[in-house]
């Protein structure tokens, strides 16, 4: 499942005020990210938070939220961004690479093996049925995340936000337009609207 609860909604457990007593080494970064990644059935974010904030105390909860907020607004897989930003903060570029390889390396091996198995046995009837069942549930989980993310917009009666949401949904989901084209229009538009709205609220 996607690491998608907006950063503000993350629960903030008791906050230790000082972080990073000793900055992690390269191997430590690799191992920590490999562990959270392999534990991360159904979303790595929760484990990342547990490992970085609660277990190793490399960051305070606030620092973690800020870092994640940054990675959330950057394009690309959030948690991958997080690994790079986090690793490089402590150990420069090698640190970023160590955390990244830890996060992505071991699961890629597993997934590649699964891909090979699927290519070989994907046509077997029992497996097809199992996968069909799993994907039904997986889609349901995705829909749950989407509705949970929509709640704040609905609660705030954010009509403009909901309109942008609907427009993107129609363009991509129904009209099946290419993503780059849609985003090249939607991003500037959405930023402009957000700016105007904030001015109006401030005025």
């Amino acid at each position, binding site marked *: 499942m996607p690491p998608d609860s907006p950063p503000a909604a993350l629960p903030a457990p008791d906050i230790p005020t000082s972080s990073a007593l000793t900055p992690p080494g390269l191997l430590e970064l690799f191992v920590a990210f490999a562990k959270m990644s392999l534990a991360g059935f*159904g979303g790595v974010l929760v484990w990342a938070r547990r490992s970085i904030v609660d277990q190793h105390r490399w960051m305070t909860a606030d620092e973690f939220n800020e870092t994640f907020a940054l990675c959330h607004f950057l394009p690309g897989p959030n948690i991958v961004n997080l690994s790079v930003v986090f690793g490089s903060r402590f150990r420069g570029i090698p640190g970023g690479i160590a955390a990244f390889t830890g996060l992505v390396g071991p699961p890629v091996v597993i997934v590649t093996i*699964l891909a090979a198995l699927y290519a070989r046995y994907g046509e077997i009837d029992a497996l097809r049925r199992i996968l069909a069942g799993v994907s039904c549930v997986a889609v349901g989980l995705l829909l749950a995340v989407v509705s949970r993310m929509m709640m704040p917009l609905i609660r705030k009666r954010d009509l403009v936000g909901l309109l942008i949401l609907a427009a993107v949904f129609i363009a991509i989901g129904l009209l099946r337009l290419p993503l780059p084209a849609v985003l090249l229009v939607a991003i500037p538009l959405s930023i402009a609207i957000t700016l105007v709205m904030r001015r109006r609220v401030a005025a």
Partner: protein
Amino acid sequence: MNSEPNPIWTLAWTFGLMSLFAVGGANAAIPEMHRVAVDVHHWMTDKQFADVFAISQMSPGPNVLIVTLIGYSVAGVAGALVATLAMCGPTAVVAYYVSRLLARSTRSRWPAIIQAALVPLSIGLMGASGLILALTTDRTWPAALVTVAAAILALATRLNPLWMLLAGGCLGFAGVI
């Protein structure tokens, strides 16, 4: 018609570009992956795409690894690696530089504004993902019912998603779906 370039290159630039446009993370990029893999390049069928999504959700690690599966189906192990690196690499470089930039500058209000502007976009994209996957997966009433039940369970309880995925697999095996 044989002017198709080496599929490895196609994988590399397709996912490299997608990486930079994947606002809202991997699950928001699923419609684009579906468009590219099923409609444009015919790398896989609708059904295979749904299967690959299911496998990626069941596997450990970040969800972005659905591209590993797509890459494998196109060009084996090399394809899997190239697709993964292409999808993660460019955005990782961007993340590195932006985080350094922001660490240096004083608190700018731009990140907050951009973030607020992107939230509805990424929800819209993920909604589109849900629709496209539901259209390929939920072709029967029981299937649609399982999807709805899973969504409600996920919203109402704190049940570990892995159990629900396993239950879905069992229902499928039993021939319910």
